């Protein structure tokens, strides 16, 4: 199938304006005749729901959380990028565009990324008007910080709780529309399937997580804003409930899944402490503004430290290796995430890691505390330092943090065109759940930007184009496709409940995570990937014959919820492996050991892999079909990324 990305003609800087002029509009009096379902109330979903309701559409918003405000977006710490150039340090829309394309290792679409950079400035205006309390300077104007992969200060923040404040802003806008009756909110309601009528997305099937009831919902269009799939790895910085079910169900109904192997490993997370570990905690990248990353210069010193024979303070300055500053003098500790993560792994592989397991490096604040004082540091990072102390029982003001890379974000997701429409007409995907803007690696502070760009400033235009071409007739759940989808959901729930085996959903999930981290994590190779594929297939068979659940499906049953999500992860995991195996190059977060420069940097193959891999479901247990969207770079020149 030929994938049409629908990128508008014309010069890069004019594409979006031209497109906004060319899209069809829905007459204001007709907007109330259209129903739109939005699944997800994180940044991407809440912003879209509020904005579409303000325009006059009837919105039904779904979330499995008990409140929209609990979406995983709430946990974002560091900040949100925008090309405001308030610092007068040379930023511009073009520079943000360029940094993002380069940071993504030239595997993102130019037109989308440029639009993202353009609307980034509106996002900040919008949020401030909503009452989002961003950090400010003494003069009363907005403050900025720097983030990895950029040489300008363009990150807006609210201490270490930027995602919280942005989400509460979007949530307040959403709440206002709920009060007006323009948004109907369905909380604790999980989408378990998409309904497609005559090739168009027309509704969803949900399960009420309190009563267990299965429900049908119809609309003229469906937007998925259901977040990322990092929890495929079991351990990640994602919230425990984050899952891929909505996207995966849509995929199996015909939406292509793009670049599933592009996952981001974040360099600064609190290391694993034991087998019971249920999730990993991120220490915001903003810490790399002031913290210095190091390991002991020699293996011997590292070993003595691990054994407790010496203390950190015994290691002299000249015996410390600030490896990022040494290897990348231009960007230092602020190299992009993939580079920082790989280097940390390399140090630990060399035997220079710290902490009991040797799987950690130091992030040290001693210098900045000496320079500016502990109070200054606490003002800027207080909540992160507190969190670190609570989790580890150690005081980061007195000794360096220990950090290690962990799965954090998924650049891959549902394939969408320039309008954010998937390959199913009437089905849109926004936020982390689509693949659109980050290529093979996302820069820090760009996910919040993308989620809000999609929801506030893109989808309100592009969905209108589709609806304007859909008759404003009421939609109902009468079509047999609804009954069929509901029957499928019921059958699956019943199947899960009736296996009556011996292993818990979490046991399967951990086993899957182990395979994924080992073979499809920070470094991958063909042989490992082949092995992982057979392992996952085996695990999936075991899941469907040995899963244990108790209770019933007619009530709140958290293990059942989890089992359904793990079942989908077991399928998505295999697709990630296929994708990683297919991509015979290294780029961004996808590092294939066979393809690296002599210095160990990612080695792209632009001739053969400058494409988006969009996978098409082809029936249960059948290999998926690979469709390619060739990426054309008309404005930036593809170069080997260098942060030296």
């Amino acid at each position, binding site marked *: 199938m030929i994938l049409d990305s629908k990128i508008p003609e014309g010069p890069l800087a004019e594409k979006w304006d031209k497109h906004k002029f060319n899209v069809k509009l829905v007459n204001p009096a007709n907007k109330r005749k259209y129903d739109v379902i939005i699944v997800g109330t994180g940044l991407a979903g809440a912003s879209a729901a509020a904005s579409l309701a303000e325009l006059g559409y009837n919105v039904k918003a779904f979330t499995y959380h008990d409140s929209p405000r609990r979406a995983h977006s709430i*946990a974002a710490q560091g900040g949100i990028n925008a090309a405001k150039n308030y610092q007068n340090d040379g930023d511009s829309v073009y520079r943000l565009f360029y940094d993002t394309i380069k940071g993504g290792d030239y595997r993102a679409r130019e037109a989308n990324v440029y639009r993202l950079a353009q609307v980034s400035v509106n996002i900040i205006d919008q949020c401030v008007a909503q009452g989002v309390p961003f950090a400010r300077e003494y003069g009363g104007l907005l403050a900025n910080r720097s983030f990895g992969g950029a040489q300008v200060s363009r990150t807006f923040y609210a201490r270490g709780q930027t995602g919280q404040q942005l989400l509460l802003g979007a949530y307040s806008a959403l709440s206002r529309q709920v009060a007006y009756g323009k948004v109907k909110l369905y909380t604790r309601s999980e989408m378990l399937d998409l309904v497609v009528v005559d090739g168009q997305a027309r509704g969803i099937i949900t399960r009420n997580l309190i009563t267990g009831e299965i429900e049908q919902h119809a609309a003229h269009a469906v937007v998925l804003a259901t977040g990322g799939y990092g929890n495929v790895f079991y351990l990640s910085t994602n919230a425990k409930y984050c899952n891929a079910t909505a996207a995966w169900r849509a995929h199996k109904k015909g939406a292509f899944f793009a670049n599933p192997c592009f996952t981001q490993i974040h360099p600064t997370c609190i290391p694993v402490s034991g087998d019971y570990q249920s999730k990993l905690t991120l220490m915001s990248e903003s810490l790399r503004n002031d913290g210095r990353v190091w390991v002991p210069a020699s293996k011997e010193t590292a070993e003595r430290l691990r054994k407790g024979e010496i203390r950190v303070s015994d290691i002299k300055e000249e015996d410390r290796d600030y490896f990022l500053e040494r290897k990348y003098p231009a960007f230092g500790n602020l190299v992009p995430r993939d580079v920082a993560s790989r280097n940390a792994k390399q140090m630990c592989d060399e035997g220079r890691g710290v902490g009991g397991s040797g799987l950690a490096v130091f992030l040290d604040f001693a210098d900045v505390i000496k320079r500016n004082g502990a109070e200054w540091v606490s003002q800027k990072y207080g909540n992160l330092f507190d969190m670190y102390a609570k989790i580890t029982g150690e005081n980061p003001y007195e000794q360096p943090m220990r950090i290690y890379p962990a799965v954090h974000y998924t650049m891959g997701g549902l394939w969408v065109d320039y309008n954010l429409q998937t390959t199913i007409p009437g089905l849109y995907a926004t936020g982390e759940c689509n693949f659109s803007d980050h290529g093979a690696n996302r820069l820090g502070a760009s996910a919040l930007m993308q989620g809000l760009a999609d929801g506030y400033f893109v989808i309100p235009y592009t969905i209108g184009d589709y609806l304007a071409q859909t008759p404003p007739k009421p939609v109902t759940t009468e079509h047999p496709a609804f009954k069929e989808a509901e029957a499928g959901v019921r059958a699956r729930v019943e199947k899960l409940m009736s296996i009556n085996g011996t292993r818990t959903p979490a046991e399967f999930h951990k086993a899957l995570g182990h395979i994924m981290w080992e073979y499809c994590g920070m470094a991958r190779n063909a042989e490992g990937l082949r092995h992982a594929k057979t392992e996952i297939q085996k695990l999936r068979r075991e899941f469907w014959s040995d899963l244990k659940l108790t209770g019933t499906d007619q009530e709140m049953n958290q293990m059942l919820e989890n089992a359904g999500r793990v079942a989908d992860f077991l399928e998505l995991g295999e697709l990630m492996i296929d994708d990683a195996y297919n991509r015979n190059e290294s780029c961004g977060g996808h590092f294939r050991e066979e393809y690296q420069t002599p210095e160990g940097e990612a080695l792209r193959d632009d001739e053969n892999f400058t494409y988006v891999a969009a996978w098409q479901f082809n029936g249960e247990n059948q290999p998926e079909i690979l469709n390619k969207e060739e990426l054309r770079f008309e404005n930036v020149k593809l170069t080997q990324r260098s942060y030296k």
Partner: protein
Amino acid sequence: MAGSNPNAKPMNLTLKVWRQRNRNTEGRIVDYQVKDISPDMSFLEMLDVLNEDLLRQGEEPVAFDHDCREGICGSCNLFINGRAHGPEAGTTTCQLHMRKFSDGDTITIEPWRSAAFPVNKDLSVDRSAFDRIIQAGGYISINTGGTPDANEIPIPKDIADRAFEAATCIACGACVASCKNSSAMLFVSAKVSQLALLPQGHVERKTRVENMVAQMDKEGFGACSNIGSCAAECPVGISLENIAIMNREYINAKATSNNLA
């Protein structure tokens, strides 16, 4: 390993857990034993251990709310040994670690108790009343687009910082659970004062506070008798100052009863 203290021995504990099928049935405390609990585990990881054991034995796991496990989403809400979020001040249940307990301890775990927070099952409660209070006015009435440049209105840093502090409420409900009257004043006042402090919020300050307070009363939360257990138990340190601000806003609103003055 992270925070591992080589001297810290695994613990065996007795748990007394509230079990309740759904909001229409009676609940009761049930005793469970958990073994080999590492002091580095979080409290919720300890409950994971219990639930995995229960499931393997063919019993029903304990339902409880959680998600981020980082102290920010506000989902977790356990009443532990008679205190909201347990013994450690300034800490959500998910950030509470087992190193705060000792081998042989008995731990009582109950849901938030308030008429406005009905129990869904076991330890999970329905806090949608909070959403309805925000829907009553916890916002600035602007649409997407057409907003002025973000730097157009300078806001003094100390005002912005105070608004931020108030805005960090995670809507966990510990304030309600800790209050003998089940008052939601701290939660409501945090939003009211965030928006009252900021110039953007001034336009609607009167109708906002009136509508939010009216909804709060309608939801069945009790009155505030200024004891302050809410702020003492709030995991993110929302200050009582907010209640004072809200009371001022409310009196002012009642005096003029529109947004004009």
